[in-house]
C-alpha cells in the first residue's frame, strides 16, 4: 500500500531526527524523511536536502511538508517549485502537525484529506 509521504524540515538536524523517532514509535509504514540543518550540518536549512527528502518520501500519493521557522518555509517553497509531484507545505506546529499527518496518512487517506485533517486540528 502507498501512503502520503511526510517531510520534516528544521534548522536543527537533531530536532527532526528526534521527531522522526517519536513518530516512528507509533507509525512505521508511512514514509517520513527529514531535512535538518545545512549542507555542512550547521544550523539552517538546505534546499538540496529538502528536495532529496521530498523525492524519497514520494510514493506517488504526494507529500506533506512541515517546517519549524520562517526561512525553512521559504526554502521549502523553492524546493517544491523545483520538484515534480504533488507536494504541500502544511501550516501547523512542526511536532504535533507532523504527528497528526502521520496518523492520517497511515489510515490510507489522500494528500488533500491529510492536509485538511491537520489544518482542522490547529
Amino acid at each position, binding site marked *: 500500500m502507498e501512503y502520503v509521504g511526510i517531510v520534516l524540515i528544521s534548522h536543527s538536524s537533531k530536532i527532526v531526527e528526534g521527531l522522526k523517532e517519536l513518530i516512528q514509535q507509533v507509525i512505521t509504514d508511512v514514509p517520513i524523511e527529514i531535512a535538518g540543518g*545545512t*549542507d*555542512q550540518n*550547521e*544550523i*539552517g*536549512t*538546505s*534546499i*538540496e536536502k529538502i528536495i532529496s527528502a521530498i523525492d524519497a518520501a514520494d510514493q506517488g500519493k504526494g507529500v506533506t511538508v512541515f517546517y519549524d*521557522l*520562517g*526561512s525553512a518555509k*521559504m*526554502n521549502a*517553497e*523553492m524546493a517544491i517549485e523545483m520538484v515534480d509531484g504533488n507536494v504541500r507545505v502544511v501550516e501547523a506546529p512542526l511536532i504535533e502537525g507532523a504527528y497528526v499527518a502521520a496518523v492520517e496518512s497511515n489510515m490510507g487517506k489522500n494528500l488533500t484529506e491529510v492536509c485538511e485533517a491537520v489544518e482542522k486540528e490547529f
Partner: protein
Amino acid sequence: MEFNVADMIEWFNKANEKIQENKAYLTSLDQPIGDGDHGINMARGFQEVAGKLSENDYTDISAILKEVAMTLLAKVGGASGPLYGTVFLKMSMTLKGRDVVDGTAFTKGLEDALAGVKQRGKAETGEKTLVDVWQAVVEYFQAGNITADGLVEVAARAKERTKDMVATKGRAAYFKEKSKGHIDPGSASSYLVFEALADVMKEKH
C-alpha cells in the same frame, strides 16, 4: 548605462570582496535581533559565487545570474539563501539570452527581482527587511539619471531608515519593539551589493 558579461562578473566579485570585508559587521548586526549568522552565511555564499564565476566561461548575463542564484540557494543556509537566490533567479529570467543590458532592461530585471523577493518573503516595505533597500533602488532606477554616487546614496539612506523600524518579518520580528534601533542585516548586505554595482559603474567611466 550598459552592462556586459564582464561587468556582471565584476559586480559579484566586488560584492564578494565587500561582504568578506564586512563579515564581522553583518554578523554584529544580526546578533541583537537575529541568530547572528548573517555575515558568516553571506561570506560563505559569496565566496562560493566568486569561485564558481572564475571557473567557468559565460557568454550571456542570465547564465551568470542563474549561477549566482543557484550557488546562494545551495550555500547560504539562512533566510538569505532563498531571498538572494530568488532575487538573482528572477533577474536571470528577465534578462534571458542577453550578452549586454541597457538601463531599461536592467531596471526591468531589478523590478522583477523585487517582486520576486516580496512574494518569497511575503514582505512589503517598512517591515525592516532587505525589501526596503531593493524598493528604494528600484525606484531610483525607474526615475532615470542613474549615477554611481546617486545609487550608493539611495541605498545607504534606505539601509539607515531600517534602524528605526519595528521588524514584522523575518527572525527579528520575534523581538518586536526591541528590534528598533538596529539596522536590518539584510538591508546592510543589500547595500553592499549595490555599492559593488556602483563601483562597476564608476570603473566604466
